């Protein structure tokens, strides 16, 4: 599923991330890489998605979160 479809408190794993090099650089340098375990903290409609990953609370723009595929761990 897409990250935007995940429910709050879900424990999951990043399956894949797709986008141009600029986006990939940004997203991977903050720690969102394939295979990383994460937790969806908050996912409200029309609001950025909040995830917890590598000991960090990260806020992601919805459009960007659409490009991230995840699975439940």
């Amino acid at each position, binding site marked *: 599923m897409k990250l935007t479809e995940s429910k709050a*408190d879900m*424990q999951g794993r990043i399956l894949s*991330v797709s986008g*141009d*090099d*600029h*986006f*990939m*650089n*940004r*997203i*991977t*340098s*903050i*720690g*969102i*890489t*394939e*295979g*990383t*375990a994460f*937790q969806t*903290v*908050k996912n*409200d409609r*029309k*609001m*950025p998605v*909040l995830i*917890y*990953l*590598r*000991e*960090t*609370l*990260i*806020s*992601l*723009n*919805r459009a*960007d979160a659409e490009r991230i595929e995840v699975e439940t761990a």
Partner: protein
Amino acid sequence: MTGSIALLGQPNSGKSTIYNNLTGARQHVGNWAGKTVEKNEGSYIYDGKKFSVTDLPGSYGLSGNSDEEIITTDYIKSGKSELTVVLVDASQLERSMFMLAEFARLDKPALLVLNMIDVAKGLGKEIDTKTLEKKLGIPVLPFNATDTKDYDRLKKLIAEELKNPHKLAVAAPEIHADVKSDSKAKFEWVSSIIDGVTGTKASVYKMSRFDRLMTRPILGKLICIGVVLLAFFVAMIIMIPFMSIGEMIPKTLHDPVEKLLTGWNVHSWIVSVFSTMLPNVLYFVISMASFVFGVNVVFGFLEETGFLARAAYQFDGLLSKLGLQGKAICPMLMGFGCTIGGACGTRVMDNWGQRMLAMSIVWAIPCASIWSIIPVISGMFFAWWQTMLVCIGILLYVVVTMIVVSKLFSRKLAPKETRSGMIMELPPYHKAHWRHIFKEAFFKAWDIFKRALGTVTLVSVLFYVLSFSSDGNVDHSLLYRVGSFIEPVTKFFGMGWQTFMAFVSGAFAKEAVLGTLNAVFMGNKTLMEATFYAKTSATDTALLGGAMTSVISPAEALAFMFATTFNIPCLMALSTTYKESHSLKWTVRVALFYFCNALVLSGIVYHIAELFM
């Protein structure tokens, strides 16, 4: 003997706090050659030797092709600094060590600072620095930015390392052509390094109660607006003492200087330069610096505690429509108080393009001065409910201007492919380090003071020459001659020479508008005195209202109010924008846009209003 070091770290790694505490007042702000990225260099003396410090631009990595990343990589490669101090956040070790993985490929001497070790301990995270040191082959220093003893330790370590530098002993992460596998390799490198160094257990994250409130869609936004308004109020309180001192300068200097110079038979032209203009320039610059100080204290606090990141989360959706990140919400709300404050507040933005765009959008927000003069002028011509309508009309046009500015400038300043809006960490709430916040705010204010003094003096002299008349009568000034010469043109925009002159003086200081109107309609003061003395002398609005309503029509008055509101905010805002953006080209571009926009708007309002009034 001297040594040179560079500071490298991700945003939120505490880099600027360490930089400011190392260098204190010995700082220099400039530009990286050919780039609009701010270059911060400073120095400190330790053990009788001078050490120069370069604060490298903050970014999450070094592999991207943003200006910040290219500058940083090139600088480290060039070897201009003998030692790179790499800062990582100990409380988020795994993620922030990514920077070290990037640095490893450059193969230069380094030492590692584990900043926020106190926060990590508070979260129950233990880090075995000795093992880490052994694995990396470079010294590792646990660090707490609030502890002054830690700075001595850092300085001592830097001095030792410069004599006997160490490079990373571990092989750098493998290089892959595609970004995906390359980042993966870097994080695998980090994992192998911190394996056995820190016992991080996968845990379920629980939001604090405050965060749960802060992230609620509507309530959170209301809290943010409330906090920023409160912050603005506090910033005003902080600046009041400085402002009052500044205000006393023209008041106390004017008469004695005038008397003294006149007694020496100095020509009255020169007398007014020294008795009126220069003391007021000093006052302007002091008010400007105190705004900067107050705003920086408040913003420093909001940023350090982690509040700004929450506000950014709340407003990102709305602001992304303007091409801005959520972080821009604070400077924008600040703009309702003071454009200078708003322009300084854009410092929280990630990159230069976003900053410049945010500053140009902040200009559209009418500041407190405008809200104090519009009702006065409107009250001369209209009933109270019509004044309300004028204010609502102004607010609606604020939104229009913002959209136009964004449409015009965002393609250049924030191209779609660089919009990295909201991939952002929400740092845990930190306690604010007041001493550091005040220190930092003071340096920024001092810096602005020094650099603005020249600009403001220059522009004031220019205005002085234009408004000068040998007998003090406005009708003999260059400005009047130009004004009345182009009156046929300005008339088209709904302004006669008097209102046009007031409009122009509004670009210097909004408070000057009433004074100028007074000078041109009542003729009881020179234009020069009207402009510079606006803040210190009272205007009899009832008399002025009588004089104005007999000369200009309500349609002209309405056009004038819109023109004044959306004109260049003031000389100090202009100068601050230039100082903060380091780009004369863009400052002029934005200023030209606002000037023309105000004129066109004035014309439109005038011609439409004429149909109905």
